[in-house]
């Protein structure tokens, strides 16, 4: 009897399993529908070094697991990273939830909640309308996109028609970008303290919306952002004169802004014109050095293929509104100790404000820069050479980034390249170069 019962259980189990399998098969709506659960990822070893200040700016091994699950209208995505190595001479082991979100998606409407990376704008590399995603500018790898960081957000997209969609994003908690100016040689007595982040409150959240038109002959978007900019400024937190030499502690201090944006792309024969512009509105910038003036930032680009070389040429400009020149302080009475202290304070204010202006490209009323991106694939796309160049005409700063990639097999790729930055004394690139100029090599296996 016992034998028979076991047999029955086995038979029922088999039938249930077959029913489940049959049910799973019948759920597929079409060949284009992705499978219910997918697991992908990569393992890579990456080295970036040879800078003036650090032999090993970044040496690490990384395991990445990306999983996607969809069933009906339910969707979830996770990108998990385990990384260990040396970052600017400091050993570390890091576990990162690069993106984790869940939600609902249909033909008309998407709703996702969780940590997400969002990229807005149609131009390349410089996107004045993209104010949502913070970056870790000091995570040095072969791929600049590795620097993107996620935000916790509620993201909704509604497709009004086949050519119009609207996106709405709410970010409850501010996430700043990461730029380690503590690594720079800014002079004796200058250091960086704790960041002054906005309180975690509803009022300090960010809101962004984008109305996108994707017509056959052109694409256009208008967008709006209200919130703290991930690219923050610096305030002087404290100045200590007790040692005789001023000891200055700076504090990263985000600022609130409103941005109205516009971007477009326009194919003309075998050329594509792309453009992007943002009107950034700020308040209290006269009294706070960490808040930039209102400005209009714009990028205009043109893309064409010259004999197999994909060429993108962009003009990057900025018009600073309500601009006033900084006045260099004058020591009125060198023999008066009070005048000396006042002069020192004014100089600290002047230098710190100037530093912020350089970061925001507001050192002059107008700022002009040129970007050139070249890319060429060889040997049936198994080799790819790309070169990126940036020259700021106003500040005379230059960056060149060559890279060569060899796809050894379908699953294994090697990259070799470098990053070179230079600029006049006391320019941002002049400070950055001893840290960020260097060469990189990477070996990456995907699965």
């Amino acid at each position, binding site marked *: 009897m016992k034998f028979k019962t076991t047999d029955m259980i086995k038979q029922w189990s088999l039938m249930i399993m077959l029913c489940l399998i049959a049910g799973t098969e019948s759920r597929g709506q*079409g060949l*284009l529908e992705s499978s219910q659960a997918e697991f*992908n990822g990569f393992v890579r070893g990456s080295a970036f070094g040879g800078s003036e200040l650090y032999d090993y700016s970044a040496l690490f091994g990384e395991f990445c697991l990306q999983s996607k699950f969809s069933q009906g209208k339910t969707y979830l995505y996770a990108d998990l990273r385990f990384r260990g190595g040396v970052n600017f001479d400091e050993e570390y082991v890091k576990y990162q939830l690069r993106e984790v979100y869940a939600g609902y998606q249909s033909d008309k409407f998407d709703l996702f909640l969780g940590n997400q990376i969002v990229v807005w704008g149609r131009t390349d590399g410089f996107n004045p309308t993209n104010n949502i995603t913070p970056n870790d500018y000091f995570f040095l790898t072969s791929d600049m996109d590795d620097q*993107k960081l996620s935000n916790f957000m509620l993201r909704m*997209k509604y*497709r009004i028609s*086949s050519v119009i*969609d609207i996106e709405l994003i709410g970010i409850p908690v501010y996430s700043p970008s990461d730029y380690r100016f503590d690594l720079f040689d800014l002079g004796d007595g200058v250091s960086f303290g704790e960041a002054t982040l906005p309180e975690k409150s509803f009022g300090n959240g960010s809101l962004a919306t984008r109305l996108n038109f994707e017509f056959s002959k052109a694409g256009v978007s208008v967008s709006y952002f209200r919130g703290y900019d991930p690219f923050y400024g610096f305030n002087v937190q404290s100045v200590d004169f007790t040692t005789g030499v001023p000891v200055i502690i700076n504090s990263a201090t985000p600022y609130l802004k409103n941005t109205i944006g516009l971007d477009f792309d326009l194919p003309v024969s075998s050329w*594509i014109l792309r453009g992007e512009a943002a009107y950034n509105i700020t308040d209290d910038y006269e009294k706070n050095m960490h808040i930039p003036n209102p400005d209009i930032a714009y990028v205009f680009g043109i893309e064409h293929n010259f004999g197999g070389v994909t060429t993108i040429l962009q003009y990057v400009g900025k018009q600073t509104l309500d601009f006033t020149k900084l006045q260099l302080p004058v020591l009125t009475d060198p023999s008066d100790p009070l005048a000396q202290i006042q002069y020192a304070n004014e100089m600290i204010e002047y230098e710190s404000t100037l530093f912020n202006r350089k970061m925001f490209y507001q050192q002059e009323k107008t700022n002009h820069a040129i970007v050139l991106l070249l890319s060429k694939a060889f040997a*049936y796309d198994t080799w790819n050479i790309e070169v990126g160049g940036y020259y700021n005409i106003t500040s005379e700063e230059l960056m060149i980034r060559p890279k060569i990639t060899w796809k050894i097999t379908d699953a294994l790729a090697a990259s070799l390249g470098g990053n070179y930055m230079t600029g006049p004394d006391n320019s941002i690139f002049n400070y950055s170069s001893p840290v960020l100029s260097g060469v990189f090599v990477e070996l990456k296996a995907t699965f």
Partner: protein
Amino acid sequence: MKIKNILTVVSLIFATSGIFAQTAREISDKASNAIDFEAMEMVLTLKILDAKGRERVRQVTTASKKYGETNKTIMKITAPADVKGTAVLIYDYENRDDDMWIYMPALRKTRRIISSEKGKGFMSSEFTNADMSKPNMNDFNYKILSSETFNGHPCWIIETSCKNEDIEDENGYSQRVTWIEKETYLCHKIEFYDFAAELYKIQFMEQYKKLSNGKYFAFYMKMENRQNGRKSVIIIDKFQIGSNLSESTFTPAMLDK
């Protein structure tokens, strides 16, 4: 009696001059229509073999549907892993340049791309992007060269020449010679000639299956590059006529799904 003789002579003249016979353009149009679908979805495997026989494999899922006069196609790469998730959307117009967008997961945004490079290799293979879509029939001149039996099928041999250098550049060849089966209008072999009129590539279409709507589809296609020894093979793993996908699926905003 006299009138009857005249009509007979006139008919013979017309028949020999080809006025009542099909022109090369008509045959080519019918060949194009024999495999024309209003809508379909398929999963294909693309094998790329270099001259030493080393193989790389790509897998693509694609769907195509006609809306008005525009044929909309979406292609999603499912393997290898490093390019998985890359998706391309093509709006194929009869008489003007196509619109194309690409979504690359690493960039996290959809980009409009230039569509004039139809002659470029499709996913690094010997097939070109032009081979993946219906050609603009008005871009070419057509001529019947001869008839021949190919693999047991009586065929016309049709020469198709690009009308100008721009069209040559766009498609990556100067002319092609096509073996079209007389009974079914199916293409079995196409020779491609480069800009110097040298034989460049040969495409073979095999395993035609007649589908429920009376149209045909080749489930095996091979392209041999006679100049560098490389070969590429497309194997159709799954195929369905028609598509339940809504028009909103064929939009740039849905490429990242």
